[in-house]
């Protein structure tokens, strides 16, 4: 510690800059509105825990929380399942057209997501799915990125176990389910965490398809509060803290896998 004192000073200052906004958010969330808008501001919180209760009055917070959990959870399960199936096929099975299909898949990765949105909206709308859970979940079940990430991962797995199983007469389903998936656990966890993170924080798509407050996700619900004439900032701070807390909690517990996932995939959401 003593040896790197200067370095630690720089890092502590930077780390403070990273967390200070959250600190101020917590302090503000515990103030009354009049105290929050005092000049000069007081740096101490008050204990106005009722701001957290008020979040449930200004927004259908419970519904939105549930919508977000279901959206993020179902997308995560769906993508890990579907992407791992496709990735296994691309990494290990031989079929005509495999390389062409994989090339097409890669080309999807390079297109900015906004390009899909108007037609996706029309599909969802013509199915009568606007303001529904399906609208939030279904397009998010499929991902070129997930297939790509897992295929890279599967290619790195040793083939001996699979070959031994094949000699013993195991078919592709068996090999995929009982050998490849267990071996690929770190890769699957990395993808799952990334999908969970992006889905939880996603704004654009939920904003477009679900405009009924009871069917919105947390991010869209919070965004709908901004710009309203009298903004009760302490309540807003409490709300945005509550909305981001679950994913921060998941991150804190599963840090290592999270960081591994980001470092190996390197793709931003």
């Amino acid at each position, binding site marked *: 510690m003593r040896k790197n004192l200067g370095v630690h000073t720089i890092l502590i200052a930077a780390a403070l800059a990273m967390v200070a*906004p959250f600190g101020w958010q917590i302090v503000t969330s515990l103030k009354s509105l009049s105290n929050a808008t005092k000049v000069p501001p007081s740096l101490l919180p008050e204990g106005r825990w009722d701001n957290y209760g008020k979040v449930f009055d200004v927004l259908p917070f419970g519904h939105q929380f549930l919508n977000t959990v279901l959206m993020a959870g179902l997308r995560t399960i769906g993508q890990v399942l579907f992407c791992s199936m496709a990735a296994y096929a691309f990494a290990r099975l031989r079929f005509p057209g495999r390389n062409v299909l994989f090339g097409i898949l890669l080309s999807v990765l390079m297109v900015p997501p906004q*390009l899909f949105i108007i*037609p996706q909206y029309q599909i969802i709308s013509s199915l009568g799915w606007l303001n529904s859970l399906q609208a939030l979940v279904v397009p998010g079940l*499929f991902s070129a990125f997930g297939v790509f990430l897992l295929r890279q991962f599967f290619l790195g797995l040793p083939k001996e176990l699979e070959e031994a199983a094949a000699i013993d007469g195991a078919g592709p389903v068996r090999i995929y389910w009982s050998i490849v998936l267990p071996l690929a656990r770190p890769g699957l966890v990395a993808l799952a965490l990334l999908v969970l993170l992006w889905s939880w924080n996603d704004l654009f798509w939920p904003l477009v398809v679900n405009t009924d407050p009871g069917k919105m996700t947390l991010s869209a619900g919070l965004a709908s509060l901004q710009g309203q004439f009298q903004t009760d900032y302490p309540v807003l*701070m409490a709300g945005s803290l509550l909305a981001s807390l679950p994913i921060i909690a998941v991150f804190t517990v599963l840090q290592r896998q999270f960081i591994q996932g980001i470092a190996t995939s390197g793709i931003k959401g």
Partner: protein
Amino acid sequence: MTVTTTPQRDTLPARAPTAAAGQQRRRGRLKEALWGYAFIAPTGLGIAVFYLWPVLQTAYFSLTEWGAFGGHTWTGLDNYRRLSSDPEVGRALVNTLTYTGLGLLSIPLAIGFAVLLNRKGMRFVGFYRTLFFLPVVTMPVAIAMVWRWLYNGDYGLTNYLLSLIGIDGPNWVADPATALYALVVVGVWSSVGYNLIIFLAGLQAIPKEYYEAAAIDGAGPFRQFISVTLPLLSPTAFFVSVVSVIGSLQLFDLVYVMAGSGAGARANPAFPRLETVVQLFYDRAFVTNDRGYAAAIVMMLLLVIVVLTAVQFRFQKRWVHYA
């Protein structure tokens, strides 16, 4: 990111080429192929319906005009002509490019912090990493809310802290002179942790021998950083820069919350300095229901992304060293 080509899967050791064995092998191949298609079917169909088809549709929509009641008529290149002379599009493009360019500041910062964290005998690395990473995992809408409050002209902490050293701060996101830069600060703040993780992984992949060799040649820490670390980190920096540029060009969440959208946002005098291409796209596609024009806007975004990515690939020879 490297795309490894699939190693060919060796089949079981070749047997004597009898007719029966050949038939069996053909049947095995057919079975394998059918399973292959079955495994890619869900994702394949989903991608085709929700991603591939939409790309073609958007390209087609960009050549049409949408009526008030949902129908659309072919108008050829009209939308693109309108695009090229629309001052709002030009402004949004300049804002987006400025934001993207200044956002690259996060790269040298991330390299600096990564190098400090990677020092020999460094302690509490996990602790620092967590704190830097916190903004990356936090919901962007929540982040935008907090910063809007920090930037508030009357009650914001930023201006209070500035007043302590005698500076009279502006109304950050409502002042055309500062709005975009205020946004850049938030963008850099929230992405530095992400880039830091990638650079840390890049630094750890540099073989120790290079530093030992440099030390034997009498290179001090600074010299080692310039002649060993930076060149060997340049492929990572290139990758991060490509990904950051693509990401910044699609900026939406932060601006949507900090500037707002629709009539309310337009009341903000700084709105013309904040509006991004994707925000304009959102407005045209889902607020004013001018979907043909929105499709043209997003096609323009695709073009900008392709061009800027191609330019980066073209210039990488000048500064990226592959070991």
